């Protein structure tokens, strides 16, 4: 294939990738976008294969490898439950990271094939790109493994903090920089593997102290890293398609991390330093037994079917108890009673960006009934019922009113402005930040203490 044609085909696939992301600006155009993405990938892969130096000798192996990976990937993607999506995405990030490391290593051992050496001497720029690509790739790999383990519940979602953690991380970081410098001066394989090992450990240590509720930020951040790793490899291969794609993915993850941080009113730095966001951290607050009003499913059913407007606020608890289908049924029943039903979603609800939206979509909730925080917050004043299910801190009025609260400044859904708040919760325990929620004790709040799914099902039975 002529060099120019190859270059143009790579350009076409880069453009298709941009269009794939562009399609996601609305659900209606998103499906076409995905087709663009797939086409772009097919073009990139076919172009590369057609240009292989040893095409006839290796094509069988390449196809076998593709088939194995393709079969595993398709099977996983078809089987996975929507509630497990954060784990799947974390696992996939780790694969991108590891693949980037393997490609960099392959380039190191076959420098001629990659055109990055003259007279057996590895180019200086390639030394930098290669070592950076490996470092970012392996950090993505080990970091995502930890994120996966936390999301899957294999290790505790609580932040694991130990003394001297930051000093250890800093020391390892300096070690990595020193080794990269050494590798640039004298590109020996021992140095490359030493860098890999150190960066691998750093990936673990950086993600371990971050708590479960901060996972949306972590998952977005690792998404970003996987993009930068791809871009790094692109520089090594002198391939603009990889560079463009890597930059797209890198900025995508960075923007998502920013949105998530803003949703919690915390800086990225603060999240990475960790130690926040466990399920049981007690943030120094005194536990006082305060009176609250508990209600039954029948009470809730009665209140809601006589309401004019109900806003449903789902959170991670809904995902945990798989309550989304029952919830949609409840919404349908309410609509039969002539009640206006809307869904309000906080940016950091769930364990990854957009987590709640996917679950509601899975349950067949029409997407024009689902609203983001800015779109719906003023609606609570006119709502008769705010139905909070599995969310907690994102509704805590202390974030708005109490400057002393650790979550002060975090944007919240103003559910307390609704006439009645129905709060579905497993028990009276506090939220992830260990902060008591004043909302529970308000006169217009009724606590529905039960498993989310069971409670919603009982409410549906309670409608007349």
């Amino acid at each position, binding site marked *: 294939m002529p060099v120019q044609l190859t270059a143009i085909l790579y350009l076409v696939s880069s453009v298709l*990738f941009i269009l*794939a*992301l562009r399609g*996601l600006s609305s*659900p209606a155009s*998103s*499906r076409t976008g*995905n087709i663009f*993405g*797939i086409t772009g*990938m097919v073009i990139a*892969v076919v172009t*590369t294969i057609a240009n*292989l130096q*040893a095409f006839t000798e*290796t094509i069988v*192996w*390449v196809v076998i*490898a593709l088939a194995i*990976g*393709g079969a595993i*990937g398709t099977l*996983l*993607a*078809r089987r996975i439950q929507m509630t497990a*999506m954060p784990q799947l995405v974390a696992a996939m990030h780790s*694969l*991108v990271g590891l*693949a*980037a490391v*393997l*490609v960099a290593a*392959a*380039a190191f*051992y*076959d420098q001629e*094939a*990659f055109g*990055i050496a003259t007279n057996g001497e590895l180019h200086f720029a390639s030394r930098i790109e290669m070592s950076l690509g490996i470092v970012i790739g392996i950090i993505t790999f080990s970091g995502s493994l930890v994120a996966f383990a936390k999301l899957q519940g294999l290790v505790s979602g609580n932040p694991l903090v130990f003394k001297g953690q930051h000093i250890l991380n800093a020391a390892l970081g300096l070690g990595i920089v020193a080794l990269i410098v050494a590798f640039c001066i004298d590109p020996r394989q021992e140095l490359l593997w030493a860098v890999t090992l150190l960066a691998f450990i750093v990936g673990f240590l950086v993600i371990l102290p971050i708590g479960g509720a901060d996972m949306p930020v972590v*998952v*977005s951040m690792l998404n970003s890293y*996987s*993009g930068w*790793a791809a871009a790094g490899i*692109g*520089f090594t291969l*002198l391939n*603009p398609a990889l*560079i463009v794609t890597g*930059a*797209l*993915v*890198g900025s*995508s993850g960075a923007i998502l991390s920013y949105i998530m941080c803003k949703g919690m009113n915390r800086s990225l730095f603060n999240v990475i330093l960790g130690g926040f966001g466990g399920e049981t951290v007690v943030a120094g607050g005194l536990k006082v037994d305060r009176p609250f009003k508990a209600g039954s499913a029948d009470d809730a059913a009665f209140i809601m079917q006589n309401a004019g407007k109900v806003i449903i606020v789902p959170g991670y608890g809904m995902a945990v108890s798989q309550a989304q289908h029952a919830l949609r049924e409840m919404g349908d029943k309410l609509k039969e009673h002539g009640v206006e039903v809307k869904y309000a979603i906080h940016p950091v609800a769930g364990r*990854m*960006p*957009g*987590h709640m939206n996917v679950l509601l979509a899975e349950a*067949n909730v029409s997407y024009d009934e*689902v609203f983001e925080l800015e779109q719906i917050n003023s609606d609570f004043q006119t709502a008769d019922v705010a139905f909070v299910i599995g969310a907690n801190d994102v509704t805590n009025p202390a974030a708005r009113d109490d400057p002393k609260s650790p979550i002060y400044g975090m944007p919240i859904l103003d559910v307390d402005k609704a006439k009645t708040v129905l709060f579905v919760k497993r028990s009276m325990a506090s939220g992830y930040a260990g902060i008591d929620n004043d909302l529970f004790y308000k006169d217009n709040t009724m606590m529905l203490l039960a498993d989310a799914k069971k409670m919603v099902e009982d409410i549906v039975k309670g409608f007349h």
Partner: protein
Amino acid sequence: MHDIYSFVSLLTVFVMACFVGYYVVWSVTPALHTPLMSVTNAISSVIIVGALIAAGASARFDASKLYGLAAIVLAAINIFGGFVVTARMLAMYKKKAK
């Protein structure tokens, strides 16, 4: 090929692509942030290009080729998995007739 000109032009491509990414991703609706992550996952696996080059460089079975083949498997898992799961999710976003 790897002279200063090509590095600068690639850097230009990189910086421009970051800007394109910035504007394109801000236009993504928050409701589709999860599919955004899964599809970016799939497309960042375009590093399979590097894996293919490593695996198909020569008929010899050396370290480079093994790394390349392993990377093909990993990247293919991601590509197929990412696109399939994105399609699955996007198919669920429906607007019901009222």
